[in-house]
């Protein structure tokens, strides 16, 4: 029947024509269209990929630098802290030494003063002893002139004075 013939029939002429048309289109497009388009596309993709890579690299580089900076800063801070601590310690040491030396000096001065006092005291005792002896002798002379001979009196007074000197050291600390 007519309808079936028109829908399903083979038309060799059309097949020949269409093969030519399609093949020509394919060849022309392959040469003048698909080639440039696909190469341009892959070129652009490559460009994008490389620039992405580069950006990634730059990012990681800058991150690394930042990290480095932070590290350096941290280290500097630590250094500063350490310096400060050292300085403080040193100052402490110096202060301690100073204090010690002052103490020592004070002790020395005190010692010297003590010795001076002791010396003065000895000197005073000496002079006192002499004075007392003289006084005693004077007094004794006076007494002797009245009661006794001189020789006996003298021995008596020496004995008294000896007893005085031996008593002396016991008396100083309390003074």
């Amino acid at each position, binding site marked *: 029947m*007519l309808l079936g013939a*028109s829908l399903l029939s083979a038309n*060799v002429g059309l097949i*020949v024509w269409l*093969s030519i048309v399609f093949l020509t289109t394919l060849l*022309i*497009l392959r040469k003048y*269209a*698909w080639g440039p388009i696909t190469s341009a*596309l892959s070129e652009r993709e490559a460009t994008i990929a490389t620039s992405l890579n580069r950006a990634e690299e730059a990012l990681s580089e800058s991150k690394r630098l930042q990290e480095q900076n932070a590290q350096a800063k941290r280290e500097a801070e630590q250094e500063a802290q350490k310096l400060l601590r050292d300085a403080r310690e040193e100052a402490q040491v110096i202060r301690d030494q100073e204090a010690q030396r002052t103490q020592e000096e004070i002790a020395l001065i005190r010692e010297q003063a003590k010795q001076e006092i002791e010396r003065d005291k000895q000197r005073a005792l000496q002079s006192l002893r002499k004075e007392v002896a003289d006084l005693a002798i004077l007094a004794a002379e006076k007494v002797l002139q009245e009661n006794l001979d001189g020789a006996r009196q003298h021995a008596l007074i020496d004995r008294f004075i000896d007893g005085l000197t031996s008593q002396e050291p016991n008396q100083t600390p309390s003074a």
Partner: protein
Amino acid sequence: MRPINFFLALFCALVLIFPSESMASDEDEFDAVHHSSDGYYLDFLPIGKVELPRILIIRSDLTGYGLRVYPSTKSALRSGEILAEMPDDGHQENTEDVEALINSGKHLDAKLVPIEGTVFLDLSITKHLIFALLASGILLVIFIGLARRYTQGIGRTTAPRGIFQNLFETLVVFVRDDIAVPNLGKKHALRFLPYLLTAFFFILTCNLLGLVPFGATATSNLNVTAVLATFTFVLTQVNGSKDHWRHVFWPPGMPVAVKFLLIPTEIIGLFTKPIALAIRLFANLTAGHLVILSLIGMIFILSDQFGNAIGYGVVPISLGFTLFVMFLELLIAFIQAYIFTILSALFIGMALADHSHSEAH
């Protein structure tokens, strides 16, 4: 916004009704299959038909092969060298009847028979060939223009600019990344990309041309789809790896008896793939048109059967469904182009593959 939409809808409805109406009144019989099948004329229905040149290669015992070119079927019949043979009764019309035949408009369905010799090859231009050529021309204009933009540097290093470039680049990248690369692998994808791209856009353009007023769908012709499928078939077999052929002629991992059973199956399988490819495309595109024409035809059938009132009442329903099927056809135009291309890529990829037998099957 709303009035514009309304007028657009009205215009579409008029465009849809007008040709069909005149067709129905012209021939008194609505023939959907005839409308969607091939012919030796361009159909500008309300205005008329433009006949296409007839080119015949004629073989006769006296003069050998001869080429006859006529500007139209009419002039071929009037030339006195060609007789018209009507296909329904098979009897030959006399040359005296030619004018009557031309006036009845049935001469376009006639088979041309030369008075002496036989037709060796009928290279006549047909409606579908014209639309295939149109599609091919559109492809050339679009993609050579697109390629020029790329060679000018737009899109080569910078982003693509404009609707035109962005639209087609998306499609090209889609074919490359979603059709070629997954099925062929990165290594072979670029080699077959030109064919896949051409097939995809050619089919898509042909499909879409069928939705244009006065257009015809070249891909709803079995000959056209057969040619496209043959290209895929040839590419598949030419690039078939050793593995591919071994699978066909000596399927590994089977007992010998089963092998002899499998060989014919495999050989048939080689051919069913492209045949299915051709028939799928043809049937999908034809079916859509037949459905649209049947829906439109429903108006006239019902008004014939039950009177004009019912006929007019059916119009909105019929047009609504037609609009829906039109959208479906738009979808199918893309899906079928995609499926043809992806199956081509799949078949070529399967033939290319050098798969190891431990993991296959």
